[in-house]
């Protein structure tokens, strides 16, 4: 090992060791099973008018009839155009808000930075349905609390209208901001401070330094954030369904929903629609790779000091703090308070003295009156969230290493395979797993395993981008130095990369864990009596029309997740991981 290491030239990367090869092969097998099989099933189904399982489904005769049906109608193209506007505007807003918060929290001496960071992330925990309904209750023209206040103060009725295209953009932007924040803050934690200091010494102010030094250094994270924000907004469903329906704005997901939601589901058409997303994701992934192709430019974590130092904002720190507080109030505070308020009411009504008198804990009591109803699914979700997040992060750390730190032929296939599921809407992915395990006689239907396996596939692409942005910042000189000292592949990976990837790993773990907790569509498709998850209960409560009980459950879930994250932080800290999410 040491001998071969000594033969490396500057700028080259270490060769793969045999242990590495085994890991790569294992990764390919795992990805092929987790991603390729459902993906092939979906592509295959899109070329068939016969349902999976029916005679003839496996025959090698194909048709483009589904494609003609899906793309031959003008509504599809109108919805696609709306989707591009919606996704572009929401992504841009979320990106700027998230980046601003990440920068102020991680890189400046703004007061209350940690609190603001925590509140921003707290938003991810609140289920999307609750957030959207909270905004309806806040800014609906007829019943919106804000409209009542504006009318009382300024005499302008129905000033805000959440049921509009801009209402959709607003809610979606706030929904996506924590994702941008997580990705950008992980990258900002790892910036080499000497470059910013050099800029300051050269006389550049805070803004020029941010624009010319900080921003280019976080390009991979920015590109990853833009990529994920855009795709996730294209895929978003709750906001378009609950607000877009009223606003008469069709987007891609609602179009797909309305065209395929009749029984029996038209699997051919559903799969065909997801091919568009697959194509779009691949184009965006290509652009991303082009943007970050010169990986060495972003390597800020070297063998020398890399601990970032905070920028002194002077008097501006208070203004920045106020602005951040306003932002996090809209992102998390307002929906959380609405959720808390609703959870204490027998029937939702705008707050008045009379209504406040009716406040009660009955919604919480009802939830606890039958322990197994709410508590077992919460436990199931905890198990699924923690295990899915841990396994996914370990997988993507290894994938990211081979993609970014080796010259392994075809390594981008690993990236493609791990990223491809982003193109699959949850409903299609859930169906693919259902069909797969109905057809493959493994006894996992009705267990947590089938949901866990689907979660692995679902969250790989997101987790990969979290870790990749951190991975490209790590200079190979560290591994080269270790190799010279005789370290093997696994030792280097474990002792060098994993600790240095902490910001990305922790951010990704948090993101996956919380989203696994919240995930509805897949859980609903694969749930049976013994593997119900927290989100299935949310759907139960939502379907049964109890927004008050739903809110109480949301508050309960918020509390549990806060506890879980705190435990995770403490455990991480014990093993030397000190970054907080």
């Amino acid at each position, binding site marked *: 090992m040491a001998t071969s290491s000594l033969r490396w030239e500057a700028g080259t990367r270490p060769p793969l060791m045999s242990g590495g*090869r085994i890991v790569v*092969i294992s990764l*390919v097998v795992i990805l*092929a099973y987790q991603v*390729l*099989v459902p993906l092939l*099933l979906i592509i295959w189904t899109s070329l068939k008018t016969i349902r*999976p*399982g*029916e005679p003839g*489904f*496996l025959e090698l005769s194909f048709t483009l009839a589904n494609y003609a049906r899906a793309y031959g109608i003008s*509504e599809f193209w*109108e*919805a696609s155009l*709306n989707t591009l506007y919606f996704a572009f505007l929401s992504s841009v807003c979320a990106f700027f808000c998230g980046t601003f918060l990440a920068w102020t929290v991680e890189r400046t001496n703004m007061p209350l930075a940690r609190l603001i960071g925590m509140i921003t992330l707290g938003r991810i925990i609140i289920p999307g349905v609750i957030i959207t*309904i909270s905004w*309806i209750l806040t800014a*609906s023209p*007829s*019943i919106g609390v804000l409209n009542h206040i504006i009318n009382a103060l300024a005499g302008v009725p129905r000033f805000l209208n959440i049921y509009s295209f801009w209402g959709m953009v607003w809610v979606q932007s706030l929904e996506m901001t924590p994702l941008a924040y997580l990705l950008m803050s992980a990258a900002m934690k790892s910036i080499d401070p000497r470059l910013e200091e050099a800029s300051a010494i050269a006389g550049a102010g805070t803004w020029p330094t941010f624009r010319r030094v900080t921003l280019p250094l976080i390009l991979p994270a920015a590109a990853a954030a833009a990529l994920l924000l855009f795709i996730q907004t294209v895929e978003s469903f709750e906001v378009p*369904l*609950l607000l877009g*329906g*009223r606003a*008469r*704005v*069709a987007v891609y997901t*609602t179009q797909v929903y*309305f065209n395929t*939601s009749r*029984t*029996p589901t038209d699997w051919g058409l559903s799969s065909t629609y997801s091919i568009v997303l697959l194509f779009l994701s691949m184009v965006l992934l290509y652009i991303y790779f082009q943007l970050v192709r010169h990986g060495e430019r972003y390597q800020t974590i070297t063998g020398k000091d890399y601990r970032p130092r905070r920028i002194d904002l002077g008097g501006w720190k208070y203004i920045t703090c106020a602005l951040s507080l306003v932002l996090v109030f809209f992102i998390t505070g307002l929906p959380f308070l609405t959720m808390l308020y609703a959870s204490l009411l*027998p*029937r*939702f*009504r705008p707050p008045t003295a009379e209504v406040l008198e009716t406040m009660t804990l009955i919604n919480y009591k009802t939830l606890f009156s039958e322990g197994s*109803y709410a508590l077992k699914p919460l436990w199931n979700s905890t198990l699924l969230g923690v295990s899915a997040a841990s396994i996914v992060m370990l997988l993507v750390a290894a994938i990211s290493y081979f993609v970014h730190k080796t010259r392994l*032929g075809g390594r981008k296939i690993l990236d493609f395979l791990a990223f491809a599921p982003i193109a699959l809407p949850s409903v299609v992915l859930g169906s693919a797993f*259902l*069909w*797969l395990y*109905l*057809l*493959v*006689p493994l006894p996992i*239907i*009705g267990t947590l395993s089938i949901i866990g396996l689907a979660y692995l596939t679902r969250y790989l692409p997101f987790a990969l981008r979290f870790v990749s942005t951190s991975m490209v910042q790590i200079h190979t000189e560290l591994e080269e130095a270790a190799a010279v000292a005789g370290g093997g592949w696994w030792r280097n990976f474990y002792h060098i990369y994993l600790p240095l990837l902490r910001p990305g790993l922790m951010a990704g773990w948090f993101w996956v864990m919380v989203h696994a907790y919240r995930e509805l569509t897949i859980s*609903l498709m694969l749930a*049976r*009596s013994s593997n119900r998850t927290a989100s299935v*209960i949310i759907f*139960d*409560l*939502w*379907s*049964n*029309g*109890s*927004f008050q009980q739903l809110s109480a459950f949301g508050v309960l879930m918020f509390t549990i997740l806060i506890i879980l994250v705190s435990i995770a932080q403490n455990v991480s800290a014990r093993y030397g991981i000190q970054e907080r999410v």
Partner: protein
Amino acid sequence: MTKAVRIVGLAIIAFVAGSMSSVCFAAEASAEQLYATLAKLPADQREKRLEEGARKEGKLNFVHTWRGKIARDHVNLFEKRYPFVKVEMGDIGSQDAAERFIAEETAGRHLTDILTLGVPDMAVILKQNLVAKFPTPATKKILKQYQSFIEPENRWTPWYWAEHGISYNTDLIKPDKAPKTWFDLCKPEFKGQVSFDPPETRFMAGLHVMMGEGKVKEWLECMGQNQPIIQQGHTQRMELMLTGDHAVQGDNYFYVGVEHKKKDPKTPFAMVLTAPVLSFAGAMIINKNTQHPYASALFVDWTLSQDSQNLINDILRGPLTIKHPYLPDNIKLVTYNIVGDDITKRLHEAWNQSIGRLK
């Protein structure tokens, strides 16, 4: 490396393909034959045989389309009466239940014994011949006004009924200004104030039975011009209306509003009972390939028992063997079962053209 990837890929495809062709296994002895034989027995002997058989089976896989607590209460009541049968219950919506059942049976996995669905949502399952015919004396208890829900061929067993009707917020509309008929919803004073869910087969079928195709299309056209609110989720829409978000529910279950009114008499809710109320049955179907035919039959019979019907009454749904908990007898009830695929397809298209098309 590339070769290794290729080999692994091929192995996985071969594994899946092999599995797909081998999982279809033959069904057990026909449940239908058993039910036909049992139907010839006197009622008490039939029941005894069912109980004995169910005791041996000891288990039942049931998909309920009621959700949450009410579904569990319903099953608990059965388990209390027949403690020797353990019910594994999944509770999902009617359309999801049908979809999953079809998927399981198509794949040759007989995981569900019985499921309950809204009758209008059953067409696809019946078409695929997945249901066991189940003649049962239990349906004799069904009240006269609901007997049209009984299926002559015994493919389903009705056990409750659900209503679709017009209701409104009494804070926003005074009773004398409230709509009286379905066509009243087209009046200018209700412009932008009437809400519907996205089109559902069960609603389309009801409209067709009530008005006939021509009138439905006319109604859809005038509704479309009145800019209705289209929002997913019956109960959420009702909650929003009661909060004052909009004035009228063009189509919704009444029981949600009645439930609110029961808890809080000040709830601003009223039903329009001058307009016909659409009603369809919720019914049990038994999988043709059920693995627990006795327990399945026992459960289906039990749904029409006094215990089960009282529970339906308590939760403000429509029982079939006793009087409705809140609807008067003199309302105009439009009962219906399954409407042809071609008709609902045409009505869905009419909806899309007049109402459902989003910009």
